């Protein structure tokens, strides 16, 4: 995929980008990598970080709930509903980071998005 230039662009393309990973049966790896890359970006001690941190909690939980094995290209193991939730929640995090995050946090989310999706 082409790298997304900014977080709103990443959000609006989340279904396209994550959907491609889903069809390639690599969504679990990508989503886990995205969540892991941002694990320490939003701090529990900072209340302003909570909304983004809460989305990360949900995304990371979804990633480990997905089937970790099985499936193939064109017949992914991850369910349609899980893919849909993943795309919506990643997009939500991108938009919230754009609105509430520091410039450093915004950069981290965009790098994690482009690096994994």
């Amino acid at each position, binding site marked *: 995929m082409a790298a997304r230039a900014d*977080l709103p662009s990443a959000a609006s393309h989340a279904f396209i980008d994550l959907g491609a990973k889903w069809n390639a049966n690599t969504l679990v790896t990508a989503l886990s990598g995205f969540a892991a890359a941002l694990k320490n970006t939003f701090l529990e001690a900072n209340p302003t970080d909570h909304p983004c941190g809460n989305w990360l909690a949900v995304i990371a939980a979804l990633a480990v709930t997905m089937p970790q094995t099985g499936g193939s290209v064109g017949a992914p193991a991850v369910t349609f509903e899980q893919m849909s939730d993943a795309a919506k929640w990643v997009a939500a995090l991108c938009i919230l980071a754009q*609105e509430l995050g520091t410039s450093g946090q915004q950069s981290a989310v965009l790098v994690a998005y482009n690096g994994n999706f």
Partner: protein
Amino acid sequence: MSYPQPSSTAPVLAGQGFFRLKTPVSTFASGSGGGCPTDIYESTQGAAAFAIGPESDLAHYKIGYLDPTNSPSLMSIVEITPERMFSGLLYARNEPGTVYQPSGRQGRILIWPTDLWYAGYTPSAAVIPGDTVFTYPPQIDIIQYYSNPPTIQPQRNDKLWFTQYLPMTSGQTTWLVLPSYGRSYIDVEFANATGQAVTYGILGVLYSFGNFATQETTLLMAASVANNASQNKVIKSSTDGVFDALVFSFAIGGSPSANASINFRATMSDTPR
């Protein structure tokens, strides 16, 4: 998103039996990323039940809670709708060291809407600049019960939208975008007392991510309503479908009279009729 968000602890300290999370949905999604529900709220108090509040415009919410029996994430999620509340004791589990996995985030109850919403939506036929688009952001309304919930499933109110005035300029169209998530029965009345004929129509809208594929369905073909005439329309989910929003268009045929008035009212109900 209202941030900082309303506190779920204050109602506990006040001895109130519930926490009501009532706030307009985020308008962050007005840029190119529009269409995604960005709001997520947290509660550090346990609950006896969750239900959609009476004034909610949105119809679907998810509740995430720390569930030690659900390995490996320790997070379970339930969805509530106008037809289905969640009744059952949930603990916030926000004691130190109790965290979701693998994020390591502190245990707490998480609440987020799942309906799509695009603050930057403009009808495809709107001429911008020129036309006027009034968009009403949907309300989030969730009730977290601290004591036993009512034995009868709480319902959303029938929502009444009413106005006797809309700015209308000859040669331009005024658009009114009202949320209608999950509504089964909608009765729309329009009476024209502007002194001029008004071309009036109704669209049903389903939002999409990035506004790439927002769907508009004509529910009432735009047609002229003469001065001192009226137009009534009933929209049923069983025949017309369910829409995220309804869009009403008004285009006046000439300069409005000095006391130009309309009677517009839309009643939106969850009860099929």
